[in-house]
């Protein structure tokens, strides 16, 4: 690859952007917006984490000690909505904003003003979601949405004002995500450097391209579903009311038509960044670039047609069950291709184990467990036993914490020196990794066994024989939660100062983004780089 020179003076010819608060409110700069997304995501990560620590504290012992069941139900549902919509998705969008223009040699995102809107819709949406907690303190309403994040009818039709707040919050979050997705697709399709064909596009960009398409396809269906819920609640329609000719199972179809692809929406950006990290710290090129691109596309397409495996016990007929079982299991084939490529990238490489690499390897092992337990759940006969048990909770936390959050942490440690120009503390980073990976397994491994033993999810109290494993899980969760403070502290220190990072940052990096200075100038790639056709 060869790049033309670019300006290194961050303010050359652009001295007039506002400063202070107005800079952040009005910014259209992809780096500023990326920073805001990531900061918002980190704050929401701690908010959602605090909620679930309260839940785990209640579950430390059988019986009700700390809270009423109603409040418990509110906490678990809002925890999930906050973590998915306000922590994980904005983190991935923050990565996209920061890295996509740098990676493809574009000066900014295609639609900068839309980008600014997309971000500033998030804080009001998060406020709407959590406001019923505060309103309830003043005697208004009966607290936040208490249906679990799935909002199943008829429970959600009967719920209090928390459900309405959640519905409007989902509408706003959906609009924000669709705007972000349109922006990313437009950037990736129209603004690549000359010579960068679609197939040469970095895998992180490919992961995000598939994610963005999935978002545009599925989020409107969820928006439609919750709109029907809203009209059922207030305007006398009966989409989900059997007495009026509706069907509550229909809500489950609408929800999971979105909900299952959502899993891949959360994971595809991580799968995209993983090969870059593995390649860097093994000092080898990425193995199977093309295979991984087709793997992403195959998982995206298959992910759209397997949704009913989330409610196999709802009374679906046997032919439908068989279809959803086999199609779900088929997803493990392209996923296995990705695992193969990740491992083959490491194979006989000159590996070194800096913090991002540790997180990447932790991700591969733990996310592998998520995939294998997912195969168990996909089995119709086994699912009848495991459905709605703690086995499911453990499974999707291996997917979304070990797969999603630890993947995001991989990316943060990997790119932080590029963003800030400083190296983070490697010692703190490694400590953070080991505390996280050990306490994560202490938290969630016992939940597999709790689920197998028959403990249902979403209950504030449980039978005595589950006590010990719940206590272990709670202790693990508190260590896990507290060790994330190290993460925040390390980021803060790195933003404030530290050893200077080189432009290349890591020894084995390749790609356009590492040819810019660290930190990159406020406006980068004023002159497009050109990718040579020979590689």
């Amino acid at each position: 690859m060869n790049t033309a020179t670019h300006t290194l003076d961050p303010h050359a010819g652009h001295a007039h952007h506002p400063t202070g608060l107005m800079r952040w409110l009005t910014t259209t700069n992809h780096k500023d917006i990326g920073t805001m997304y990531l900061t918002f995501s980190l704050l929401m990560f701690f908010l959602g984490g605090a909620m679930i620590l309260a839940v785990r504290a209640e579950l430390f012992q059988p019986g009700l000690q700390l809270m009423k069941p109603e409040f418990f139900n509110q906490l678990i549902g809002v925890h999930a909505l906050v973590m998915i919509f306000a922590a994980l998705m904005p983190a991935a969008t923050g990565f996209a904003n920061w890295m996509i223009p740098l990676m493809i040699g574009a000066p900014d995102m295609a639609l900068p003003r839309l980008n600014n809107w997309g971000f500033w819709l998030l804080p009001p949406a998060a406020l709407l979601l959590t406001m019923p907690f505060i309103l309830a303190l003043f005697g208004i309403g009966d607290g936040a949405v208490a249906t679990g994040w799935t909002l199943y009818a008829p429970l959600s039709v009967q719920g209090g004002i928390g459900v309405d707040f959640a519905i409007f919050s989902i509408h706003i979050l959906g609009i924000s995500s669709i705007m972000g997705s349109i922006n990313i697709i437009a950037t990736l399709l129209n603004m690549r450097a000359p010579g960068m064909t679609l197939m040469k596009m970095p895998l992180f960009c490919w992961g995000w391209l598939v994610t963005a398409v999935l978002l545009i396809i599925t989020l409107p269906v969820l928006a439609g579903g919750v709109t029907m819920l809203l009209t059922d609640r207030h305007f006398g329609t009966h989409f989900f009311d059997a007495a009026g000719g509706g069907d509550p199972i229909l809500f489950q179809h609408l929800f999971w038509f979105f909900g299952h692809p959502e899993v891949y929406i959360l994971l595809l950006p991580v799968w995209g960044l993983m090969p870059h990290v593995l390649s860097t710290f093994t000092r080898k090129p990425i193995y199977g670039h093309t295979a991984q691109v087709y793997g992403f596309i195959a998982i995206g397409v298959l992910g759209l047609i397997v949704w009913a495996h989330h409610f196999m016990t709802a009374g679906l007929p046997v032919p439908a069950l068989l279809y959803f079982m086999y199609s779900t299991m088929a997803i493990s084939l392209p996923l296995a291709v990705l695992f193969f490529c990740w491992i083959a990238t490491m194979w006989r490489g000159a590996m070194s184990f800096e913090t991002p690499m540790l997180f990447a390897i932790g991700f591969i092992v733990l996310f592998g467990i998520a995939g294998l337990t997912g195969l168990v759940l996909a089995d119709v006969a086994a699912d009848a036993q495991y459905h709605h048990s703690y086995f499911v909770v453990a499974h999707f936390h291996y997917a979304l914490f070990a797969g999603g959050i630890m993947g995001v942490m991989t990316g943060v440690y990997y790119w932080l020196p590029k963003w800030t120009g400083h190296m983070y503390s490697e010692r703190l980073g490694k400590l953070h990794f080991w505390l996280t990976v050990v306490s994560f397994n202490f938290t969630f491994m016992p939940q597999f066994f709790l689920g197998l033993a028959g403990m249902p999810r979403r209950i504030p109290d449980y039978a005595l024989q589950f006590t010990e494993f719940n206590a272990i899980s709670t202790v693990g969760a508190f260590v896990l939660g507290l060790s994330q403070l190290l993460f925040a502290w390390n980021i803060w220190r790195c933003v404030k100062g530290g050893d200077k990072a080189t432009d290349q940052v890591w020894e084995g990096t390749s790609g356009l983004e590492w040819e810019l200075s660290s930190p990159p100038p406020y406006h980068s790639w004023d002159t497009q780089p050109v990718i040579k056709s020979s590689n």
Partner: protein
Amino acid sequence: MNEAALPPPRKHGRLVVRLLLLAAGFFAFGFALVPLYDTFCEAVGFNGKTLRDATQTKDLPPSAVDYSRTLGVQFTSTLMPGLPWEIRPLEPAIELHPGELRTTRFLVRNLSDQTIVGQAVPSVSPTVAARSFQKLDCFCFTQQTLAPGESREMALTFVVDSGISKDISELTLAYAFFPAPPKP
């Protein structure tokens, strides 16, 4: 800044419009799923949904009575919350031959001192048999209004199609009585 390096804005515009249309299309698709889902379930009998009124879709009389087979049919009923009624099948279980026209009755009583409108929603199990359970006349076709303390025998006339799968020897028809939703 080298403006020439940037693509013309119009290029973005066309793409954005297409992507917005895609999003709008899937929003509409979500709503289209409502009738599609109903049609699908009724057509193949998934979800235990019976045909709303067999007289509208089937020629009468239906297929000949198959005296070589005897099926057990059970009737159950439940009341949904908010409906202060009492309901029970007068014949909890009957035996019949496929293709035979039968009428059975449910006793329904309003226990409250108010006039209340209710709506019965049927469901057949096993669900694959739902398509073969053809109701010719049923109190579930319309909403039922009961005066305070009134009790009434409500009739159901049906045929189990003689084409019903040979694997099935027992059927259950369950009625859930809902308080009728207010008219929109």
